[in-house]
């Protein structure tokens, strides 16, 4: 990992409110540096501005203040070439087959047919979707549809992949296995990855660094370096260090989560048998 691949400086976002209410200060100010080839996860309480941060970094939303750059160039107004985004919601195109969904971006940017075939076949195989190339998204499970979306991003060979809770709709076992797939993809492509997630264990298992965000307006309150090797997989959950890291993240996050629920930590009643 070397030079800064993407950076945010003093970025904040305020959404104007309708109907005479107060504006919503959703994010920041935050600073973040992503080194080339680094895997960073962001965890934070609901509504803390995690997805807003991702959209600002992608160029999908303009910041209210601060600056963003990707590969040394400012991000303004448009999504720069080289950035791929996987959304939390199902973004598969229901009128296209799995094959056509995955080939969608390649056809858009004028890639040659033979190259499209090669990349789509590779992606289908990588994502375990070989037998579903001609199926429509409606015929697939939620997890498979999300794999289609990841594959569609992957074939474009982005240098920075932004993932907004991509496994949010999946069960725990599938999440772990998809996490392994994601790590394999990261190792193979060497891309920089920013993962937004609610799941502390997922963040600790996958990332080189885990950024912990405060309640809204979100800012970073801790940056935890996991220290895993590049060849890690879901088996790290059995390591003692995994427990220590998740405990540290949760300790920082607990107070913030209570704030986002509108309750201070001191006002939470702890059962007598637990407080003893």
């Amino acid at each position, binding site marked *: 990992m070397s030079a800064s691949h993407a950076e945010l400086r003093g970025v904040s976002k305020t959404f104007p409110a309708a109907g005479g209410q107060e504006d919503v200060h959703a994010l920041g100010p935050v600073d973040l540096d992503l080194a080339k080839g680094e895997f960073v996860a962001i965890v934070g309480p609901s509504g803390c501005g995690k997805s807003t941060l991702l959209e600002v970094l992608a160029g*999908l939303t303009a910041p209210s203040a601060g600056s963003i750059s990707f590969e040394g160039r400012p991000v303004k107004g448009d999504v720069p*070439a080289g950035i*791929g985004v996987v*959304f939390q919601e199902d*973004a598969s195109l229901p*009128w296209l087959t799995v094959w056509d969904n995955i080939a969608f971006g390649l056809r858009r940017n004028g890639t040659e047919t033979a190259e499209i075939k090669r990349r789509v076949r590779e992606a289908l195989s990588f994502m375990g979707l070989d037998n579903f190339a001609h199926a*429509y998204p409606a015929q697939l499970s939620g997890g498979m549809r999300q794999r289609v979306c990841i594959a569609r991003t992957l074939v474009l060979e982005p240098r920075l992949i932004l993932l907004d809770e991509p496994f949010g709709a999946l069960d725990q076992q599938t999440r772990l296995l998809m996490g392994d797939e994601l790590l394999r993809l990261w190792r193979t492509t060497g891309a920089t990855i920013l993962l937004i997630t609610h799941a502390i264990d997922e963040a600790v298992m996958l990332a080189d660094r885990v950024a912990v965000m405060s309640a809204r307006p979100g800012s970073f309150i801790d940056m935890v370096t996991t220290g895993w090797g590049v060849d890690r997989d879901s088996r790290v959950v059995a390591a003692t260090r995994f427990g220590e890291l998740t405990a540290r993240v949760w300790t920082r996050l607990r107070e913030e989560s209570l704030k986002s629920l509108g309750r201070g930590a001191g006002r939470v009643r702890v059962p007598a048998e637990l407080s003893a």
Partner: protein
Amino acid sequence: MSQITLVRVAVIAGFVLLIEALCRFGAINSLTLLPPSEMAAHLLALLGSGEINAAIVSTFSNVAIAFVLSVTAGFAAGAVIHALPRLRRLCDPLLASYYSVPVFVFYPLLVSLLGLNRWPLVAIGFIFGVTAMVIATLNGLDRVPRVLLKLARVHRMSRSAEALRIVLPAAAPYLFTGGKLALAYAFIGVIAGEFILSGGGLGYAIAYAYEAFDNRTMYALMLFVLIVVTAVNAAFYVWEQRLLRRRGRA
């Protein structure tokens, strides 16, 4: 053929056979209703003689023109209204109460504006159908998932590419429904207009036969209109089901 389709066909066939039997055995007076077999036989004779060719061409060309105009103008108007929220707020109550207006009262006005030719009929069909298409377009555009619009931006698509590759296909099921309604309304508007106020077309031919006590021609023409409208709707239905099945919504 699926079991449900078989049941559907059997119910219709049973109903037709029941009418046939009631007419043949005198339970229904022949001045009231003819046996379906006789209607069909007379229809074949009419088609064979070429007697109603001009009426068929006139009615269906009017319906086709009214349908195409309704769909294109309805879609364009829907897209413009969707893009302008203030205009939308202005139009919403008007669109909601549109079908309470008895459009046929405007026929004399349409004749004086457009002349005594096909265009007042086309206008009636158009006025009936266009609003269904406007409402369907607004529904469709409202329901394009926001995440797909973000996807278009991630793929750095131009506005026109976004409209063609993302918005239109995503809204297609709703646009399809609008098209289906526009066609039904075009048929209703044109044929009813011919029936009441025109001097040509299938609607006029039915009214003429009715007034001349020519039951055989009247029922034969009614059967013809029924068969054509059902066939066109069935074709649309099959197409729509195929579209929806792909999307897991059928």
